[in-house]
């Protein structure tokens, strides 16, 4: 009797401890980064760091604006390219596809998710970049080296979509069969059922899948860095090169960590990246709570 209760208590507290500790890690990372970036924060004003476009570390000019904009451009493009096809695909796999087709396609998508990002990057350099330079850009009347926001977005979209498909397909399949049967019984077609009933109850889960995709897109470094051009100028079109924050850190950290101010600037870049992802997921969680509440009422 007592040992049973004790076991329950121990299990409870142990799980609490691990949960608290692992959530503390985010805090520890943030504090460390903040501490390491104090040097640059004390010598430069925040508005200058955020709004200036002049990146000349050796002249003491650290403008992060092009990098922040580069991150947003590439991520936004990747999501625009990835979300619609991956949703259609996950609906197809969950609702329409025969078991055999699903059995073949699902493992292939999971395999895509497991490919190392440097492989995607190489593939981007060998295929996507020349394709954009020789065919896509001339169509749009632009001349470019091919190392562009577009190349980064395409490669990133391909990396993100297995994640979105995998999760949203599971979510859609988890919708109870009775819901579908009820809809069909009312005379709705399969498409009407999918559109009005299934996706509606799977919606919060699909949003969560998209969020996970965004998380990867923001932070993905190697593949993007290899195709995006890395020019520290704010992009103004899809055919401009961009320079996202993770690329800035990866490109310079090993070489520049012996120069204190430069090191500190790179730490600040990491902090910015963390904050962007944090703000984004907080906003998304709030939205998600709202959606769930509305669905429960409706």
């Amino acid at each position, binding site marked *: 009797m007592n040992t049973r209760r004790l076991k329950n208590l121990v299990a409870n507290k142990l799980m609490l401890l691990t949960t608290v500790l692992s959530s503390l890690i985010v805090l520890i990372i943030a504090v460390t980064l903040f501490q390491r970036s104090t040097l640059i924060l004390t010598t430069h004003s925040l508005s200058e760091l955020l709004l200036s476009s002049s990146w000349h570390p*050796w002249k003491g000019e650290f403008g992060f604006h092009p990098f922040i904009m580069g991150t947003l451009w590439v991520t936004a493009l990747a999501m625009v390219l990835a979300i619609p096809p991956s949703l259609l695909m996950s609906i197809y796999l969950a609702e329409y596809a025969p078991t055999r087709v699903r059995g073949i396609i699902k493992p292939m998508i999971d395999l895509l998710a497991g490919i190392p990002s440097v492989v995607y990057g190489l593939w981007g350099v*060998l295929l996507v970049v020349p394709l954009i330079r020789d065919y896509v850009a001339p169509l749009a009347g632009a001349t470019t080296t091919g190392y562009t926001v577009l190349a980064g977005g395409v490669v990133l979209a391909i990396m993100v979509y297995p994640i979105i498909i995998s999760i949203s397909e599971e979510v859609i399949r988890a919708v109870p069969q009775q819901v579908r049967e009820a809809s069909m019984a009312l005379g709705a077609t399969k498409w009407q059922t999918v559109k009005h009933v299934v996706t509606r109850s799977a919606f919060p889960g699909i949003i969560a899948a998209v969020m996970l995709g965004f998380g990867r897109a923001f932070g993905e470094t190697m593949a993007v860095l290899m195709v995006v*051009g890395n020019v520290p100028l704010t992009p103004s079109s899809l055919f401009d090169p961009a320079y996202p924050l993770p690329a800035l850190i990866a490109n310079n950290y*090993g*070489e520049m*960590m012996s*120069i204190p101010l430069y090191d500190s600037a790179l730490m600040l870049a990491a902090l910015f990246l963390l904050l962007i992802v944090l703000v984004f997921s907080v906003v998304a969680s709030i939205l998600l709570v709202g959606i769930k509440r509305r669905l429960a009422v409706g």
Partner: protein
Amino acid sequence: MNKKFVLVALVVVVIASFVVYNYVSSTNELKGTITVSGAWALYPMMVKWAEEYQKIYPNVEIEVSAGGAGKGMTDALNRAVDIGMVSRGIYPEEIANGAFWVAVVKDAVVPTINKDNPVLEDVMAKGVSRSTFIGIYIYGNITTWGQVVGRPEITDAINVFTRSDSCGAAETWANYLGKKQEDLRGTGVYGDPGLVEAVRNDRSGIGYNNIGYAYETETRQQVDGIRVVPIDVNENGQIDTEEDFYNAKDKIVEAIGNGLYPSPPARNLHLVTKDKFTGLAKEFVKWILTDGQEYVEEAGYVSLPEDAINEQLEKLNG
């Protein structure tokens, strides 16, 4: 019977190896571990040196890791490693923190273009001068291949490529043009192989590479698909015979050695430590500067001239 024989043989072998081991360790009294980290540019050379040194002194263990010049410098200044490898000049901030360095070997950065460049023949015959490179890489006022070779009717745009990662090669190239890496124009591509790939795929492209990546190690010819741009050192508008050494690796290595190829973009590669090299690390660096130089050429690098070696040895001992 047979078993006994095997046993005896085994004992003999064990005893013999002990004797040999003791003999070897008493003749080669150097013992211990040397840790090395830093620049990618120096890594293959250092691995070769470490191998050879450990053959002579089997009780010395040398651990080499790469991770960039800044990492080598930071590790050395924090005494996390005995020797840091640095492929660029030493910055004042680092000297203030007690950086001590010796040059051990040279290599060079060379400009490269696509083998199907629209004005390839003109470029090969006339060369490209430093001021033209400055126009392309720094000011951006030279934008077509026609401008490069003085044939205004050719309007193919120059696609300028540079390294995205901070590196000794880019720093050296910028230094040749009188600037810093951050001032170089162009699309940033990651790593030496990435830059080769970018130029190979773009007939209007121009880039720059360490000679190790611009020439094949086995055939000692230029890498397929790219051509090394001859530099018009005396700016007379043509490549003279003494400026013509780009066809094969051995010729350019010789030109770097005797100074016909300008420096920069030829550069010294350094080993650094905090304050001074001491003990085993010092012995190793001394060996690198003396006997170690014989492996330099086969690893694809360029030896320092003799007076420079002596200067570095004096600095090491001083």
